[in-house]
């Protein structure tokens, strides 16, 4: 299976899709029915959804078309079908968190991000597959089965936002919410050949989103293009009285075309060692593509990021064990083997070490900003050192290889979770066999605009093609 190219004359991105609905070139019902048809057709192959909600989606689409006909004010995503990771509360709907323990949980409130997308007019066609409780960088799930990679179903989607990567990569929807605690947006984006944004820690509200690690959880989009991801991020970002950790930062504006005053850093150290040839080639291609656009493109030395990755794990798993403390005691049999083992071993992290890992965070951030962002404005590094693995290679459950697999998958992503930095992941190339290679564009705190601007220009320069699915359009009335 390959990614799907957009048909001539079809909207190029989410904004144009919404414009097509507004202009009555297509109805929301037509778009939603097409997305549902594609979702149903691909479900046996991709297993991207935990639940496809056709009836509710079509009812919402019909209402959206009614609003167009009535001339009511329309939001920037009015009538556009999306789908989201199974961890965002919507009042009256199930939020299962990819688990057995929460499988029938009906939410009583709506998460801030879902409320903001609904206010923008978007509708949802279903709940997307994910690693159980968002613990699992490979995307395996003992309860629902793994989502499969649209580029090669034998390969992993990456996790934990596995269904989000698969659904966007297969062109079922143009955007989907994921979440990222150690790489859970960036790894599926990289494996499935789509764009993902993990914003600065504190940029997006977590209210109503399943908690895993309150110090590192980030809500964000996976999308078919940088423009799509940027639009969704702008809609969901911003302070929220329901999440005191959500900060009042400078707003996210338009992306810049001119990169001529930007210094692009190419990550050295572990980011340049032991890479698969295709990954190294993608970094080189990105450097070549950016060279004529930027003030400079040059290698930048790195602090000890392996240590930072380990600190990220200490923080994430200590906090996850606290979240799961009661279920771990009362319902251990209801966890899949890998999440249960990871949580059980987190109990052995002494409290002083967890606190110390949080203390070191401020020191590490200062050191990293001084060492790296004094010499460049954005940093380009791979999302993973290898191509998306075969499922069989990394389906290790709780056996003794578990920690090694988790560390190998997240070694390039976790450090930026711990530091709290914004990262845009985008396709940087493909192997001869068509497997995607993901790159991370990392920026200083609150400078998502720099990372996304570079990503957008790189996306255009590399011209890897659209991953959007076909849309049923007719000429403007």
């Amino acid at each position, binding site marked *: 299976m390959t990614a799907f190219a957009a048909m001539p004359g079809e909207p190029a991105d989410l904004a144009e899709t919404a414009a097509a609905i507004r202009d009555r070139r297509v109805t929301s019902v037509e778009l939603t029915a097409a997305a549902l048809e594609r979702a149903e057709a691909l479900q046996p192959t991709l297993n991207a959804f935990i639940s496809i909600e056709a009836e509710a989606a079509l009812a919402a689409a019909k209402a959206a078309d009614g609003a167009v006909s009535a001339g009511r004010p329309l939001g920037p995503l009015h009538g556009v079908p999306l789908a989201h990771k199974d961890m965002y509360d919507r009042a009256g709907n199930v939020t299962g968190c990819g688990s057995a323990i929460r499988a029938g949980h009906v939410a009583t409130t709506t998460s801030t991000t879902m409320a903001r997308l609904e206010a923008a007019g978007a509708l949802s066609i279903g709940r997307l597959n994910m690693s159980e409780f968002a613990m699992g960088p490979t995307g395996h799930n003992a309860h629902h089965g793994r989502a499969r990679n649209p580029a090669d179903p034998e390969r992993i989607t990456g996790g934990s936002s596995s269904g989000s990567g698969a659904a966007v990569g297969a062109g079922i929807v143009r955007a989907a919410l994921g979440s990222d605690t150690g790489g859970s947006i960036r790894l599926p984006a990289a494996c499935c050949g789509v764009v993902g944004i993990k914003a600065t820690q504190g940029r997006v509200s977590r209210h109503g989103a399943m908690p895993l690690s309150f110090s590192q959880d980030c809500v964000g989009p996976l999308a078919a293009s940088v423009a799509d991801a940027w639009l969704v991020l702008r809609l969901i970002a911003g302070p929220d009285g329901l999440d005191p950790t959500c900060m009042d*930062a400078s707003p996210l504006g338009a992306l810049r075309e001119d990169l001529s005053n930007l210094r692009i850093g190419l990550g050295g150290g572990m980011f340049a060692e032991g890479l698969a040839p295709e990954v190294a080639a993608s970094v080189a291609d990105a450097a070549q593509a950016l060279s004529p656009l930027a003030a400079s493109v040059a290698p930048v030395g790195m602090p000890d990021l392996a240590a930072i990755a380990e600190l990220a794990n200490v923080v994430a798993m200590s906090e996850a064990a606290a979240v799961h403390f009661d279920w771990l005691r009362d319902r251990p049999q209801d966890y899949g083997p890998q999440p249960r083992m990871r949580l059980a071993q987190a109990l052995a992290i002494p409290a002083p070490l967890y606190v110390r890992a949080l203390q070191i965070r401020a020191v590490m951030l200062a050191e990293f900003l001084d060492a790296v962002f004094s010499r460049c404005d954005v940093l380009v590094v791979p999302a993973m050192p290898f191509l998306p693995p075969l499922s069989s290679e990394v389906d290790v459950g709780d056996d003794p290889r578990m*920690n090694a697999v988790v560390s190998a998958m997240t070694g390039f992503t976790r450090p930026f979770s711990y530091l709290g930095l914004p990262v845009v992941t985008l396709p940087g190339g493909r192997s001869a066999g068509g497997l995607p290679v993901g790159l991370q564009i990392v920026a200083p705190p609150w400078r998502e605009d720099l990372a996304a601007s570079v990503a957008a220009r790189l996306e255009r320069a590399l011209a890897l093609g659209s991953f959007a699915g076909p849309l049923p359009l007719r000429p403007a009335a």
Partner: protein
Amino acid sequence: MSPDIWTDLCRLHLGRDPNPAEQIAMAGQAERAARWIGGWSTGADNPLFAVEPSHWIAAMRERAKP
């Protein structure tokens, strides 16, 4: 720390004895955590002596100002 500590932890937190795989994994987790974080403890020169977790939040808030 001895394996008995993992047994105590499991009994304390989970109300049961750990299985052998959990004992190994828990020991490994704590050892890795101690190795990385313990390296920061340098007695009187401990650079974390006056650092709190809230300092990271303060640093991020400072940079968030428009």
